[in-house]
């Protein structure tokens, strides 16, 4: 009997367990998945929780519900990965040998990386919305907040779902408008990048959103510390941005397990071949989703496309065949723009988001890089798709793992 071990039962790990259980012969392979937490969160919902659009119940379910019965599901903290011994060590001392290991331990916020961020004002007037706890605490704060300077801030890249902070700013604009207090709130978007939008096509098509909603932009802001006593964030150029309410996306880092095991880069992400998803650590270790160092977006849709390709590559690895270099960095994301509208973007490692129709060329019904109500309905419907199809490893019709260029306004790059 051979062992395939999956570390992490989040979006990626759960998908891989579901894909592999039907592909690996049960008499030859035993699949084990390990995660210390009992709850599976619908993380895209964390964006909506602060604005009372989703309830806390809509974004969490018991993880066990989504793990196939024939897979061994261990709820325990993982102590160490030992690649030289092909073993994983659990907190209570159990040793799990593996023939193939899949690392799907995701990414976490690390507010402790910035001085003053998670100090005495953490969850008082400084919040994150990338955790269930943060999003819920922020919801309670927003319910009673009387207005002032709202600063939406990105600490450093890469972050999970790079557009979420921008969506947060857009939704905040709608939220305060609906509460009849928009004029009491000043919204500023602060980013370490050159702009809220950084790609030429998106900047051209979308910059009006910021102007229309009266959202100010502070760019190239690399935070050094939070001065929580005087309510301002300060960057290395001594630029100061004052706030009454700071909604920040702290530094994102891979799990501490990766650091303990000596398998990660500076941010604890696992060095991974970007087209095959085999780790650069060891040939029988694969990595997927937010846990990798891939130059793709850290997003559920990326993990979903990766899962289809990784499943095939694991089967190839078992047969001793060369791995398929198929992963192209494909991502497909709905972006809430507030007032019941959303955008849709579809892109990969090399192709920036462009205008067009999706998934059917020339037909749609979804419009790329343009605001519409249909796109918003797509984003809302996605919660159902997530719980009922995506993490169960059911293929989403008409959406391929590799990006399609059909129906898109792609300009040929001059050679």
């Amino acid at each position, binding site marked *: 009997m051979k062992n395939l071990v999956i570390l992490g039962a989040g979006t990626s790990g759960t998908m891989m367990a579901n894909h592999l259980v039907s592909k690996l012969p049960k008499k030859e392979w035993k699949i084990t998945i390990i995660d210390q937490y009992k709850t599976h969160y619908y993380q895209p919902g964390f964006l909506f929780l602060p604005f009372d659009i989703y309830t806390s119940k809509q974004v969490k379910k018991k993880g066990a519900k989504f793990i196939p019965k024939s897979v061994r599901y261990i709820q325990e903290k993982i102590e160490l990965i030992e690649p030289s011994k092909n073993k994983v060590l659990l907190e209570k001392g159990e040793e799990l040998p593996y023939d193939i290991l899949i690392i799907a331990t995701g990414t976490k916020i690390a507010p402790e990386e910035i001085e003053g961020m998670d100090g005495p004002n953490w969850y008082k007037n400084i919040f994150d919305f990338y955790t269930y706890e943060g999003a819920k605490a922020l919801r309670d704060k927003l319910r009673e907040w009387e207005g002032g300077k709202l600063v939406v801030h990105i600490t*450093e*890249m*890469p972050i999970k779902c*790079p*557009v979420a902070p921008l969506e947060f700013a857009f939704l905040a604009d709608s939220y305060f408008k609906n509460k009849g207090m928009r004029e009491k709130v000043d919204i500023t978007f602060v980013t*370490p*990048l*050159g702009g809220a*939008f*950084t*790609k*030429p096509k*998106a900047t051209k098509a*979308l910059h009006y959103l910021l102007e229309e909603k009266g959202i100010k932009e502070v*760019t*190239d802001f*690399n935070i*050094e510390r939070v001065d929580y006593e005087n309510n301002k964030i300060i960057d*290395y*150029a001594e630029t100061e941005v004052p706030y009454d309410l700071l909604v920040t996306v702290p*530094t994102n880092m891979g799990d501490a397990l990766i650091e303990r095991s000596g398998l990660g880069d*500076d*941010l604890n992400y696992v060095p991974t071949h970007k087209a095959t998803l085999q780790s650069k650590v060891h040939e029988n270790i694969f990595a997927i989703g937010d846990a990798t160092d891939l*130059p793709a*977006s850290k997003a559920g849709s990326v993990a979903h496309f990766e899962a289809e390709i990784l499943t095939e590559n694991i089967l190839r690895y078992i047969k001793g065949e060369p791995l398929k270099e198929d992963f192209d960095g494909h*991502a497909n*994301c709905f*972006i809430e723009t507030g007032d019941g509208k959303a955008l849709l*973007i579809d*892109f990969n490692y090399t192709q920036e*988001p462009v205008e067009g129709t999706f998934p059917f060329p020339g037909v749609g019904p979804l419009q790329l890089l343009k605001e519409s109500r249909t796109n918003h309905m797509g984003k809302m419907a996605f919660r159902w798709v997530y719980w009922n199809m995506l993490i169960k490893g059911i293929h989403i019709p008409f959406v391929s793992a590799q990006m399609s260029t059909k129906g898109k306004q792609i300009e040929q*790059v*001059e050679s």
Partner: protein
Amino acid sequence: MKKVIGQKEIDVNEEGYLVDFKQWDREVCECIAGECNIVMTEKHWEVIEYIHDKHENQEPLSIRGIKKSGVINIKEFYQLFPGGPLKKATLIAGIPKPKSCI
């Protein structure tokens, strides 16, 4: 689009970033720096070299990376490339600027 930098015609994007790194050389670099009101010193070249190494290894450039680079600290980085050091240093080094997905 094309832009004459120094004596050469170079392919750049709408923001002036080089499209083809093969067209980069020290002269091009000094000209772009000049347009940013930066005079290249020995320290600037060390930073450019570090950035090129990162780019070659396909490692993203970040302030955190600069902190650990052993070449320069963050305050010095700001002094060498005032006003958006990552944006300016990548422009001068002839590689794409750090970006997000949109």
